[in-house]
């Protein structure tokens, strides 16, 4: 077990875990850096994919994007493993944290974690956490979205690691193996920012800026929908996807803005970074306002002004479009 492990709380689970892992294994990296360097900011609105009868809305790239891309981007070697055998997965985890004193990251479901508040337990399979030790039958866990460290017994953690469904974790376990000694941050950052700009400005109509506008259109249609229960659920579903799953959609914007701010310490176009960072912060604020309006309307459906709500989202998309057009040529 690690005795000197220090827990900290992050805005988002996956970037928090990767940032802690890299820092622990010798490469100091902040959460915004881990998030930005892997070009994780995104938007997707896929009405054909349904979750509990609601369309898929995502404010960042697919789960595992950070773990996968950090290898390629930084040239670090990360040990990654999924398991078929539940027993083997458990033995290996115990061996790593007990005998080898390693800090490891895991992908889990949220639903089966006993320390999660009951109201937060949904079948969301792409949660990430760190295990830093074991005491008796209990694993010592540093969950990046919690204020303090927590414990979880073997049985429940195993259940959470082998939950089925969309993004099934299959016991996914990971930790860095070796860290490169020197990194050319200027070129890494340039590439990462350009890549993210490209994905936000994609012509594909269900992603990036265009995806935001597509969602705005679908909100406008709610005005004439007579099914009050559906409208209420739809509006709050958007807010939950934005603010709760992982962290806020507004939250992801602030995270990226913080990344651009940090990128200014390297030899890049500082004016562009500063301006883009401000624009994306504004977009995050706008998305927060958007969430507020969605909830207000869901509370009082007779006062629903769908056009007003959709225009707030369009405003956020315009801010991001301006920012990423600028960043494209950094």
């Amino acid at each position, binding site marked *: 077990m690690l005795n000197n492990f220090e827990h900290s*709380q*992050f*805005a988002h689970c996956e970037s928090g875990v990767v940032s802690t892992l890299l820092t622990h294994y010798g490469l100091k990296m902040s959460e*915004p850096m881990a998030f930005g360097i892997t070009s994780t900011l995104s938007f997707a609105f896929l009405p054909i994919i*349904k*979750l*509990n*009868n609601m369309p898929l809305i995502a404010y960042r790239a697919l789960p595992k994007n950070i773990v996968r891309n950090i290898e390629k981007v930084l040239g670090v070697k990360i040990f990654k493993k999924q398991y078929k055998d539940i027993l083997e997965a458990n033995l290996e985890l115990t061996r790593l944290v007990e005998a080898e004193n390693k800090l490891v990251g895991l992908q889990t479901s949220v*639903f089966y974690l006993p320390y999660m*508040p009951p*109201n*937060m*337990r*949904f*079948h969301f399979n792409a949660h990430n956490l760190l295990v830093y030790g074991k005491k008796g039958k209990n694993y010592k866990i540093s969950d990046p*979205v*919690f*204020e303090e460290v927590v414990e979880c017994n073997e049985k429940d953690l195993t259940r959470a690691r082998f*939950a*089925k*469904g*969309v993004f*099934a974790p299959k016991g996914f376990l990971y930790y860095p193996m070796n860290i490169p000694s020197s990194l050319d941050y200027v070129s890494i950052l340039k590439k990462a920012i350009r890549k993210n700009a490209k994905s936000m400005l994609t012509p594909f109509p269900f992603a990036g800026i265009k995806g935001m506008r597509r969602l705005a259109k679908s909100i406008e249609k709610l005005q004439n929908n007579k099914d009050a229960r559906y409208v*209420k*659920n739809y509006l*709050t*579903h958007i*807010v*939950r996807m934005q*603010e*709760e799953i992982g*962290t*806020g959609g*507004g*939250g992801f914007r*602030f*995270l990226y*803005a*913080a990344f651009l*701010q*940090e990128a200014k310490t390297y030899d890049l176009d500082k004016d562009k970074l*500063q301006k883009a960072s401000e624009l994306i*912060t504004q977009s*995050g*604020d706008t998305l*927060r306002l958007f*969430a*507020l309006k969605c*909830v207000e309307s*869901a*509370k009082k459906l007779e006062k629903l002004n769908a056009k007003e709500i959709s225009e707030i989202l369009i405003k956020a998309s315009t801010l991001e479009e301006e920012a990423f057009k600028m960043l494209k040529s950094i």
Partner: protein
Amino acid sequence: MKKTEVPLENNSTLNGQKKVMYAVSEKGEFSRVNYGSSVEEFATITAVEEYQNLQEECLEEIKQNIASPIKYFMYKNRMDISTLSSVVGMFSFRVKRHLQMKYFKNLNDKIVQKYANAFGVNIEEIKEFTHVK
């Protein structure tokens, strides 16, 4: 978001925990701050209540011999058909059928056991389902 604008409302769904976001100071520097949002609270509670409503409605359907207890347990575990079908390892059209009383009555124990495992209950709790409030 500016540090001074960060919401500090109560969010009962987090059981006293506070989440973290990056906020910007007057000097333009970002750092992590705790926040609490009643907007998020409302959205979560709506989702939780929706499952409770579905459970209530399902109890009515069970009384009328339309829906099976499996449907009730599905909602109780906050699942939809696609999640449940991947947990029990059956195609969703089969699961959909098992949610109806007329098909449920003819199910053998082996299949009901699969559902019992998925919901973490005894097989009897599903087979001899009587809901006591």
